[in-house]
């Protein structure tokens, strides 16, 4: 783990992490709760994500050579550190399953309904594992490509949909209540949680410490802007009830897009761009899960656990995606309850412990 990545690459990773699930499944879930306030919930959630990201950067900055788990080791000892690593592993396991649901339901439901599920899962495990073996830099480089893909995807959906936008459909605001809209942000918070948790694991691999905050928070904000287009279009073109009616709301947008008379049904092109971003998420989550796994096992090189970790992630994900109701219930009801306490709790605990045991942390080898 000696190869370092640039801040721009890190920013690209953050942008990718908040995107793929955030534009489709998350918006559909949010629309079922707060109807046409999903775009406001998205903005609020991005701001929350930016604050959490800033806290994570502050925590890691105290010892820029240590991941958040290594800091826990240094402050509270190895065994409690292992518990923290286990919690982080649980988070990355859940996050991987959430992204696998996104991956499988996009490709299987809309493009390859006769394809067996296990082949999607195999692709979602084998390709990221290959990248993870080659280190973070490979994923980071693909993430830069992923950002261009996201921009291309957004341009394509805008060109095909803007003429159908009825801004009246974004009204009324806060129809389901302000606090309900705030509560709905928990779903998109789980997407940003992936970015903040990942930052806690990989920031030591980003070479320019001074630009961390700018890159991390900038990634959340730029990513947020790229995502925000989707709830606005989904409400403005489809309407909120229609967005909430579908499991994968963004695909409904994609197959409604049309440029002029002749260019329609270009969702195959859009899904290719989307797939790159999705792949980056899968790679990064296997990478971070492996880092957490190696920490639990007390191993120095994460590569030793990549295969077993990916088998656990892939196997659990396969079980979940087999049943649409189970998968959507997990994403809607269980995942925020599991993800947010870990994703908010770990950085806050790290920040608090670092403040209390400043000298111990500075002196740790």
């Amino acid at each position: 783990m000696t190869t370092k990545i640039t801040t721009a690459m890190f920013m690209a990773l953050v942008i990718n992490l908040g995107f793929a699930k955030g534009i489709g499944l998350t918006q559909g879930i949010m629309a079922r709760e707060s109807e046409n306030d999903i775009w406001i919930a998205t903005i609020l959630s991005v701001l929350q994500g930016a604050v959490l990201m800033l806290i994570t950067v502050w925590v890691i900055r105290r010892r820029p050579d240590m991941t958040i788990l290594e800091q826990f080791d240094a402050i509270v000892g190895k065994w409690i550190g292992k518990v923290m690593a286990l919690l982080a592993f649980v988070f990355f396991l859940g996050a991987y399953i959430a992204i696998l649901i996104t991956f499988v339901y996009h490709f299987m439901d809309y493009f390859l309904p006769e394809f067996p599920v296990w082949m999607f899962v195999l692709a979602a495990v084998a390709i990221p594992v290959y990248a993870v073996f080659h280190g973070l830099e490979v994923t980071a480089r693909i993430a830069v490509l992923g950002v261009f893909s996201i921009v291309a995807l957004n341009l394509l959906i805008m060109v095909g949909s803007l003429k159908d936008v009825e801004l009246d459909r974004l009204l009324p605001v806060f129809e389901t209540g302000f606090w309900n809209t705030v509560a709905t942000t928990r779903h998109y918070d789980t997407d940003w949680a992936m970015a903040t948790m990942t930052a806690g694991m990989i920031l030591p691999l980003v070479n320019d410490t001074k630009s961390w905050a700018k890159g991390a928070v900038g990634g959340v904000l730029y990513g947020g802007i790229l995502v925000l287009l989707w709830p606005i279009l989904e409400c403005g073109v489809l309407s909120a009830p229609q967005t909430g009616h579908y499991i994968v709301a963004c695909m409904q947008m994609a197959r409604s897009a049309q440029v002029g008379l002749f260019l329609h049904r270009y969702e195959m092109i859009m899904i290719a761009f989307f797939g790159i971003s999705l792949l980056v998420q899968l790679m990064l989550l296997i990478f971070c899960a492996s880092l957490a796994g190696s920490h639990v096992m007390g191993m120095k090189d994460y590569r030793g656990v990549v295969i077993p970790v990916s088998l656990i992630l892939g196997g659990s994900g396969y079980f979940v995606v087999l049943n649409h109701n189970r998968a959507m219930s997990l994403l809607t009801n269980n995942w925020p309850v599991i993800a947010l306490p870990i994703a908010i709790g770990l950085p806050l605990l790290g920040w608090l412990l670092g403040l209390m045991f400043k000298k111990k942390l500075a002196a740790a080898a």
Partner: protein
Amino acid sequence: MHKQWTIPFLLILCVFGLSGCTGAVDINDLAMVMAVGLDKGDTPGTVTVTAQIARPSDVVGQTGAPAAGTGEPIWTATATGRSIFEAIRNLGRYSSRRVYWGHNKVIVIGEDLARDEGINDVVDFFSRNHELRMRTWVVVTPDKASQIVATKTGLEVVPGNSIDKLFHFSDLVAEAPKIDLRTMQASYLSDGSEVVLPVVQTRLRGVSTDNPKEFGSTPQVELSGTAYFEKDKLKGTLNPDDTEGLMWFVDPPKTRVVVIPCSSSNPNQTATLEIRHYKFKVVPQYVQGRPAFRIQLNVECNLVELDCPTKQSHQQVMKALEASVEANLKKEISDAIEASKTNKVDFLGLGSRFQDRYPAEWQRIKSNWPELLSTAKVNIDVSAHIRSPVLLSTPTVPDSAGDR
């Protein structure tokens, strides 16, 4: 060690990736549906599906059969089932190819089915179908849907394409809203508006090439009028005149024609104006616990035809006609609102607009909306400006014509 594992791993991966045939369907195994008709089945509780399927080898040319073709560009098949899905599966009894929906242009629903059985399963089935385009047009017909699906109209070789093209140019007459599957589903799921669908029917308007002297012997599909629904059941239809008023609310056309009398002595003499720009606004109000609406329409039009020879200047003529245009437009909007109020069906989507402006009040009154709508006060304010006489400097007047 690392590289030793990488190559076998990649090779094993290729075994899965390059097998190439999972889920593959060759294009010549597909029966491409271009239009589908849904009628009430003969047995209660059944639905009859009529699929118009393109015969690709014969679609290329209309006159004469290509070498390997039959000369018929479409093949129409029908099947019945207890659900739409079952009926479509039953098409497999006759179709030598797998039915494919990706190119379907139009869904035609028979009035009987829409009135008696409702459209819930139509919305549900077609919105679940991943192959279907969300831009597929949805229409209602008083005829048999199977008849519409099989009728060749206009210049197109494939009837489904004909209906599709009718929609592309329907703005010119603006007598039917353009409703696709996406729009229909949005209205259907909304609690502030009811579904409206355009009406198509066959009319004997074509001239057969075999018998050119017999005018009006060939049926053509006409797109004109609107069907409105209450919940999922067809409640009634609007004639083309009432539809013109409805269009301002649900699908304002880019351009419209307004024909008004221009002579007080001869009502058959008319002036024709083409609306080029408009601003249409519905302002919901909540007055003393009751909903009310203020409707504002500002139009700019051109004078495109004047049947009244006059020695007045164009400026005078245009100024005089503006009041008539305003009255004409006000009447058509008023007629549409009256139709909605009388039938207690909110096909204009006024509830949805009220909800946008008064969400809290909407929650209180939405259960009683049809009743409140029928007594809601509506003020209509129309302002028309005729901007251009188009090309001509003075009205066309024969030498002998006097002042009129």
